[in-house]
């Protein structure tokens, strides 16, 4: 089940040509090998040799061309195109990374209250030989798998399982790694009945208080509260072509532009790419993806993820439990853009009376402010 992105096509087209030439070359090699000892075709072989060399150089040239083209295309992706890459069905998911960037994975199941949500995967694994707790959203690749995993949209059980796993990690002093990749928490009847909002809220508060290092990586789609619920970390990283947003571009477009087809404009307005979010202080580090995106080279993407996680965790494990909590608090406490009061206002009431805005002369006091 592969899906081609429109802007990838020129590269894919080149790569198909290269593939064909390679097959052609391989075919000739074989032919050459079988006829070589027969001697009588020596002359023909010589002739083939020259065309073989031409073929080789043509392949080389095309490969170079493909590389340049890929570089060009992927260095200039629009935000909307990045959204497409982030959602690519061949992009590595949590379980892929658990097989490649981690070792010795043991999955843990269930929220101990209601059920097990396959849209979130939790378990113990080793990162370069050290045990960690890994928690990540999990999408499916096939229709059947997607139905089971609910397209990576967790229900309350998923968040409760995640928080439970985090507390297990905390109890045993293990660092926590979360991998974020969800369109959002599931908006359904059952989810509401079982307290979706409360489950997410508990995760946010619970994560803030964890006494072990937490590193989160947005590996694909960071869809709103359903993503943030496992993203209250000491360090928040993002893969180069992943996205993180308060609302999907489609959702934003249908509300603010009154038309979901304006998703492209909404994606620009929302500033949801890794460089955007780094500039806003929401993301600490961007992990470079293989040329052409993580979906083009899973092993390389996994190596880079492993490397980045290892670097961050090596620093964080040096911190004391209380320092970790304070560090996380400071990190999120600082996020937001306000004016005229970014500094806390704890002036005594007397001082406040005079300190009101022009717009609201009586604002120092609530009483009778509406005159």
């Amino acid at each position, binding site marked *: 089940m592969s899906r081609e992105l429109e802007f990838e096509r020129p590269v894919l087209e080149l790569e198909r040509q290269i593939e064909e030439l390679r097959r052609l070359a391989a075919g000739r090699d074989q032919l050459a090998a079988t006829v070589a000892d027969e001697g009588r075709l020596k002359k023909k072989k010589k002739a083939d040799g020259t065309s073989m060399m031409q073929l080789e150089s043509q392949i080389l040239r095309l490969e170079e061309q493909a590389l340049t083209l890929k570089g060009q295309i992927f260095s200039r992706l629009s935000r909307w195109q990045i959204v497409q890459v982030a959602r690519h069905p061949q992009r590595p998911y949590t379980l892929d990374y658990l097989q490649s960037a981690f070792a010795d994975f043991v999955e843990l199941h269930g929220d101990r209250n209601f059920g097990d949500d396959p849209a979130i995967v939790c378990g113990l694994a080793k990162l370069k030989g050290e045990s960690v707790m890994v928690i990540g959203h999990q999408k499916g690749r096939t229709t059947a798998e997607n139905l089971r995993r609910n397209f990576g949209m967790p229900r309350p059980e998923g968040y409760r399982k995640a928080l439970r796993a985090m507390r297990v990690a905390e109890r045993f002093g293990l660092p926590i790694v979360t991998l974020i990749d969800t369109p959002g*928490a*599931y*908006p359904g*009847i059952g*989810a*509401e009945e*079982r*307290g*979706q*909002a*409360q489950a*997410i*809220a508990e995760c*946010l508060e*619970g994560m*803030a*208080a964890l006494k072990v290092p937490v590193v989160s990586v947005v590996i694909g789609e960071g869809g*709103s*509260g359903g993503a*943030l619920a496992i993203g*209250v970390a000491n360090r928040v990283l993002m893969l180069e072509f992943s996205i*993180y*947003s*308060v*609302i999907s571009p489609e959702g*934003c477009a249908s509300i*603010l532009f009154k038309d979901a087809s304006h998703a492209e404009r909404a994606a620009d*307005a*929302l*500033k*949801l790419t890794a460089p955007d*979010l780094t500039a*806003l202080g*929401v993301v600490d580090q961007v992990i470079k993806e293989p040329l052409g995106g993580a979906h083009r080279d899973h092993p390389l993407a996994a190596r880079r993820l492993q490397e980045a996680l290892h670097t961050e965790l090596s620093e964080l494990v040096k911190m004391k439990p209380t320092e970790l909590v304070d560090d*996380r608090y400071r990190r*999120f*406490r600082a*996020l*937001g*853009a*306000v*004016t*005229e*009061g970014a500094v*806390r*206002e*704890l002036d005594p*009431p007397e001082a*406040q009376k005079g*300190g*009101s*805005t022009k*717009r*609201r002369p009586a*604002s*120092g*006091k*609530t009483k009778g*402010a*509406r005159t």
Partner: protein
Amino acid sequence: MSWFKRMASPKVKGDEKASVPTGVWKRCDGCGAVSVAELVKQALETCPQCGYHFRIGGRDRLRTFLDPDSIYEVGARLEPLDPLEFKDQKRYLDRVRAAQKSAEEPEAFILATGRLKGRPIVAGTFEFRFMGGSMGSVVGEKVTMAFELGLEQKAPVVLFSASGGARMQEGILSLMQMAKTSAAISRFRESGHPFVSVLTDPTTGGVAASFALLGDIIVAEPGALVGFAGPRVIEQTIRQTLPAGFQRSEFLLDHGVIDMIVGRRDLRDRIALLFDHLS
């Protein structure tokens, strides 16, 4: 209500609506009865006939909930910036200016210290008329300040929620307010003082999915719509019509999401009693 009345009502409704002069009379959205607006106001914006709860402005909320002459506003000057330079059909800051004008408030949240039956508390409320009570950086900041103040002054915190959720125009920064406010609660828990969250109509999205549902005690006003996803989103997702009363306070009580439903006129007494037990 008998079905006969129900059948007869639409015509009457249409005619009467047009003839009710604004300001003097107020028609109830619940039972349709027309009452003297002053009486509705005296009943804290509830219907004198059926008890239906109208939405109440933030300032009126604090004025009627806290002891008279005890209220001092905190962070009144906080206003949003626009680091995303967000523009849809309008520029974000233009929307903010328009909202400031129409809601007569600088932002969607009012924070104050005051007294409840003599006990010093920190109280905050949304102003739903300001961009649907959406939570951006200023709201997140003030909610966080509420818990920091509570911790510092060793006082209980009560917050009234009325919000459609995160403010899209502040993008990821509005999302981060969920983490910020929830982290602040986590610290406040050490104070030994309670946080009572009062859910009013409507409380959804990022506000529900953060501090509003983290109260030590969670109270809802009757008939308030509270949930993670709004009903329209759910209907579009599951392609079904939702049952009547879905996500309303009574539904939440049934499903164990909240502690109690308390009518607006009883909130002062009930919450004072809670603080009496807990603080």
